[in-house]
């Protein structure tokens, strides 16, 4: 059996390893168009701040791991898929057949459609190559403008700040990390960054970027406000890498369309990770989550379904994130914005940058945000994803004090009953 995986991010690597475990005799090939061994984008911020060397970003550290696992690493780019013929056309001119194919090509950073985004000195922060460019330009006392205060933007803030640059963050929306944190917690993150000397402009648009002929950039914010910059980082979003699928007949709608078994519209072709429009645990709809735990989950589920005789139905991934913004740790889980007819428990301490928000549907926890919490937060995932019923007293206890999540968990799962 020939298993071919396109893309060597976490989804692809986990899928390859899962296949090796479940189908010991099959052939497994992992095709990647980046020159480095499979690496993790999650680690890039730590590479930027010099906490780790480049090798520290690699997904697998053991020598000869892929060879030992009999996973063939192919450095090439897939140009086309012939789904009927079960074959791939590669940029190198070769073609390659498959019995089962996994599309795990991930996503790419996009640049906003404004003038000057392709000037030298305007970079995404997505690949190791991007990181090398950023390190080169982000010299002490240089001016750096970060477009986008989403997850990626926030997570590289500390790295940039620690390089001693003058930092301005520009976000179109009215708060930082708008897709992960609500307005109260997003507002606190902004306040935190400002207290650390970062200029944060929310509800602000970049109209265009210019260059003064000497390599110095100018970022036009409209109303005559143009900010000089030595480096502009575009962290305004990502899009699934699906362009090579045009003409393949594989259905794409925002991401590769998959079913509960992560099968695409083409026979024997699966998709996983950032490229796949997989099922969301909370909304039960299909959407691109583009987060690390989902990539891992997808890789495992897709690989299992690729093996003859095995089949598992995917119940949907919980959308969750943990973010360290210059030392302020925030997290989000599931329906953190709440559900119709649900209840919300919230604690807010602006002076100490602490926040927690729990969302309930009936007596089930369905979503949460935290800020300034680092202990036992995984339990939020456990409580949400098991849909455990807290009972009236369990919910009441959490409504009264949302911090008691571990206690709520232990009660719900270890038979600790309330005496009230």
């Amino acid at each position, binding site marked *: 059996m020939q298993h071919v995986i396109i893309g060597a991010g976490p989804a692809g690597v986990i899928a390859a390893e899962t296949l090796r475990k479940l189908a010991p005799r099959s052939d497994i090939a992992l095709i990647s168009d980046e020159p480095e061994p499979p690496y993790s984008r999650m680690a890039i911020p730590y590479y930027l701040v010099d906490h780790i060397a480049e090798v*520290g970003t690699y997904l697998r550290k053991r020598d000869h791991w892929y060879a030992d696992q009999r996973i063939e690493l192919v450095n090439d780019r897939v140009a086309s898929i012939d789904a009927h013929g079960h074959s791939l056309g590669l940029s190198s001119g070769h073609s390659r057949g498959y019995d089962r194919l996994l599309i795990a090509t991930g996503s790419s950073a996009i640049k906003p459609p404004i003038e000057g985004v392709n000037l030298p000195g305007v970079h995404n922060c997505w690949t190791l190559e991007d990181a090398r460019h950023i390190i080169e330009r982000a010299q002490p006392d240089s001016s750096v403008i970060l477009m986008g205060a989403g997850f990626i933007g926030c997570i590289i803030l500390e790295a940039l700040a620690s390089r001693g640059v003058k930092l301005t963050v520009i976000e179109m929306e009215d708060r930082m990390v708008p897709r992960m944190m609500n307005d109260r917690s997003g507002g606190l993150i902004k306040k935190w960054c400002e207290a650390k000397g970062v200029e944060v402009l929310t509800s602000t648009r970049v109209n265009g970027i210019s260059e003064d002929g000497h390599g110095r950039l100018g970022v036009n914010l409209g109303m005559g406000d143009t900010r000089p910059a030595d480096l502009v980082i575009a962290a305004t979003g990502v899009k699934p890498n699906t362009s090579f699928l045009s003409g393949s007949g594989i259905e794409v709608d925002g991401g590769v369309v998959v079913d509960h078994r992560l099968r695409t519209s083409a026979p024997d072709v699966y998709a996983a990770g950032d490229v796949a429009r997989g099922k969301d645990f909370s909304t039960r709809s299909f959407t691109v989550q583009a987060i690390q735990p989902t990539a891992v989950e997808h890789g495992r589920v897709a690989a299992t379904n690729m093996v003859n005789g095995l089949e598992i139905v995917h119940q*949907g991934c919980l959308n969750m994130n943990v973010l360290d913004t210059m030392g302020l*740790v925030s997290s989000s889980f599931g329906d953190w914005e709440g559900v119709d007819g649900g209840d919300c428990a919230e604690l807010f301490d602006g002076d100490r940058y602490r926040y927690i928000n729990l969302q309930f549907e009936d007596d089930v926890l369905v979503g949460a945000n935290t800020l300034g919490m680092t202990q036992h937060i995984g339990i939020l995932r*456990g409580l949400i994803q098991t849909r455990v019923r807290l009972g009236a007293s369990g919910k009441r206890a959490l409504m009264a004090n949302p911090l008691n999540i571990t206690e709520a968990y232990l009660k719900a799962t270890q038979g600790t009953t309330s005496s009230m």
Partner: protein
Amino acid sequence: MMKSLLIEASKCTGCLQCEMACSYENEGVFNPARSRIKVFTFHSEGRFVPYTCTQCEDAWCMQACPVDAIVINAQTGSKDVLEDICVGCKVCTIACPFGTVNYNQDSGKVIKCDLCGGDPQCVAACPTAAITYVDADATGLSRMRDWAAKTDNAAAPH
């Protein structure tokens, strides 16, 4: 036969000897805040519940780690954090449905129970045998495993 921690909450008096033994073994100081095992107090119920990693087979933490910093200890079956490889991204802290991998802001790394390499100090320190280290089959760990399984998107019946 692999061994695992058996926790009998009804025997716990909440003295935190386990937390001190754990932090002393791992951090060189007596510091419950850095313990890998934590005793939760249910004040109005009069109940103390020690709580730590069950070294679950699924090891969400290990799977979620983007840099291969969590590995299985072949001797004990524990899932160990390799501190010099951990970058501190914290994905494991939200991936673990038990919340037993935690971020240490001082070191910038995550910490979790590693069974002290097979000689768990919490067990040695517990004055009431509320924590023991026994053959895995005897621990009734299955209940926690069931919980872990429920968190598994993939494993639902079909």
